[in-house]
């Protein structure tokens, strides 16, 4: 029994069919072919699947697809605007804040959510804000540096 829902993904409102038992991650990756968000654990333990729903970071691997009806979804693919990288993406590149890159889309989306909620996070805020995102390559030192870099730039531009 397929059901259609309407939602906005990366600024585009569309109607999509939802499979029974489908989670948001599968909807994004398999139905919409946006494969940036990754499966890492399927139980909200690693954060590789993180996307923003109405500006809040969610673990899409445990979010029922039907629950996002009418909502705004932002994935890694929608972060760059008009060919310009988001400051968090730029900072990740400049700081070399990744190795294999598999956790990176989820990590970046968590950082974006963190900075939207708290534009000037302390070290402790960063640790708390990214506690749910695993990077098995353990590029954490650089990830922390990238977050502070973006926060610093924003502070300077305000």
């Amino acid at each position, binding site marked *: 029994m397929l059901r259609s829902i309407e939602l906005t993904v990366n600024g585009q409102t569309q109607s999509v069919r939802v*499979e*029974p*038992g*489908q989670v948001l991650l*599968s909807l994004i*990756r*398999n139905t919409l*072919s*946006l*494969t*940036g*968000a*990754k*499966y*890492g*654990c*399927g*139980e909200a*333990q*690693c954060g*590789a699947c993180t996307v923003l729903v109405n500006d809040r970071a969610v673990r899409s691997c445990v979010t029922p697809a039907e629950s996002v009806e009418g909502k705004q979804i932002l*994935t*890694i*693919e929608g*972060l*760059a605007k008009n060919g310009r*990288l988001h400051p968090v*993406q*730029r900072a*990740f*590149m*400049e700081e*070399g804040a*990744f*190795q*294999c*890159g*598999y*956790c*990176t*889309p989820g990590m*970046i989306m968590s950082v974006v959510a963190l900075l939207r909620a708290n534009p000037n996070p302390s070290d402790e805020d*960063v*640790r*708390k804000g*990214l*506690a749910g*995102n*695993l*990077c*098995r*390559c*353990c*590029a*954490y*030192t*650089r*990830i*922390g540096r990238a977050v502070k870099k973006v926060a610093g730039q924003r502070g300077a531009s305000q």
Partner: protein
Amino acid sequence: MKEAEARSELIEQERYEISSFFPDALGSDRRTFLKLFGSGLVVILAAPASLAQSGESGFQRQGARGFRVPMPKDIAAWMRIEPSGKITVFTGKVEVGQGVRTSLAQAVAEELSATLESIELVMGDTDLTPFDMGTFGSRTTATMGVQLRRVAAAARGVLLDRAADRLKRPKSDLSTSDGRVRMMSKPQIEITYGELVAAGPINNEIPDQIPEKDPAQWRVIDRPIQRVDGLAKVTGRALYADDLRMPAMLVGKVVRPPSFGAKLINADLSAAQQVPGVVKAFVDGNFIGIAAETQEAASQAAEKIQAQWQEEKGISDREIFQWFKNQAKPPRALDQRGDLEQGFAAAEVRLQQSYRLPYIAHASMEPRSATAEWKEGRLLVHVGTQRPFGCKSELAVFFKIPENQVHVLVPATGSAFGGKHTADAAIEAARIARTAGRPVRLAWTRAEEFTWAYFRPAAYIEIRSGFKSDGTLTAWEFHNYNSGERGAVAPYNIKNSLTVFHPVESPLRQGSYRGLANPANTFAREVHLDEIGELTGLDPVALRLKNLADPRLLSVLNKAIEISGWASAGERKNSMGLALAVDAATYVAEVAEVDADSSGRIAVTKVWAAVDCGAVVNPDILRNQIEGAIVQAIGYTLREKILFEDGKILTSSFGDYLAPRISDVPAIEIAIVNNPRTPSTGIGEPPAVPFAAAVANAASRHLKKRFRSLPLNSPLD
């Protein structure tokens, strides 16, 4: 490094899983796996066909250490320059996160005098790249980096010859930069590499002797250039195996046995076959495969399959170390020096202790995944792996087809750490694709990854030592059970010693892991040394200096002492620990500082690392590797362990298996002993090697109790 080493790859026998793949219904045919355990048989059988393709002949055995594989001599096998100026480099090495797509391109850009932007690497494509045993052993920079520099230098030589002909000028009047040859006497006259290959591609051989650039002239090597694949990674555009979509592609799934060694008695597939979207559910021996239009349908079908299994009795984690001692096969002496009994007789103090490390998981963020497509009998596979050619051989053997009927491509790969040497997911995807008659992609779940992948071997290590009261070691007897040989021979100046490896039939599937057995062997050795320090009242540094002769090891030790302020740390030193290691010909000294909460749970607060890995190609990628190795090692040092009971893995999620998180990250200070004139050695593994011992030694001082088992915060009984 010797020339022969630079032009070939060493394969250590210790990489059990290479000689031990057991593709048939993974996990249910452990016997086959064990039969081949440690024999190196499959390596020998599987490789010659691939070698024949690359125009090379067989392996060279390197004593007990393993095998060497020669590399092609033609420039064209490694590099193609297009008339457009685009340079394509072919290597069987793969990028799994370690940054070699960037550092190898830097090596080529340097020796070829080309821009980094003009260079593209084709990596791990078995139809296009020269045969390669695999990306492991921290060998990419040390061997492939050297090889590609030679290729690039040779190509540059050919381009200079052609330019000299065209311009009718002696080569002494020509210089190269940014992909062009310029006349020095008339700098406005230049020819691009593209123009020089328009007449014909470069088909020359790589000369035996080939001058490389002097390090003083380096412009690309030893620069912290950003990762060339960074944009793809931060935009989500990098495609991993499970991101690939093809027309008519199905989702594959495997129904696993309930425990290791279980045999399938029967399976009722009828309910599964009725799930809408299921294209095929089938049994093949011990293997239950499903092909469905969607992931959801595949999962629902798997749940609806009623299977009966006959299970075997298995052992549990609590018994494992005793099992190792009881079940050990004939031992192998790795090293023997002097007269051990005389050494013990000369000793003033003797110490005997044992050390234990559990099985641990690689837990790469990307679980095993693959796509498979059969086209007119030829199999095309995309799989995230460290051994594309090994996977190709496994697939050919499994499906009983010639190797040239298998094409393996390595897409972006979500880390490996020694854990992605086998073709498991590729074989499963190909089996299901063959039965379903359509392309299939298949990705393991996290629980499958924790349960059915192979582990770092658990280790039981015994050391018996004798020493003078001034700390001089007079006798050293070292026994490793099950975990392996690498790093077992102590890098100290010990006159009388015996080092022995005792192989065991591991009850769990085990294989390569960052540093192989060296982290375990170094842990035991360096903790034991601190125990000797305690008995003799010697400072850990003084004790090591007493027994150390290797100048490079001495220099990293001194550097670590310097940056950590060891000598003047005063009270703080009671929470600091030190350890040394040599791994992949790289020298590492690490100092760790710890703290503990009221329950005695240890946290690492600061780490100082001194590393000598010879010439540095990309200092930023190097630091990233060192930081990553150290933080990852916090996991196996403090918390990570695989628990199992009666053949069942109990630790099957990130909720049970506690990998390091950002809150675990200590302050890290790194000193690189960078000598551009010393050949580059490995960096992927070495910094992870001495870490656990440094932390255990710090914890022992801090809590005034000796730690001899990992993980420190919850060791196995």
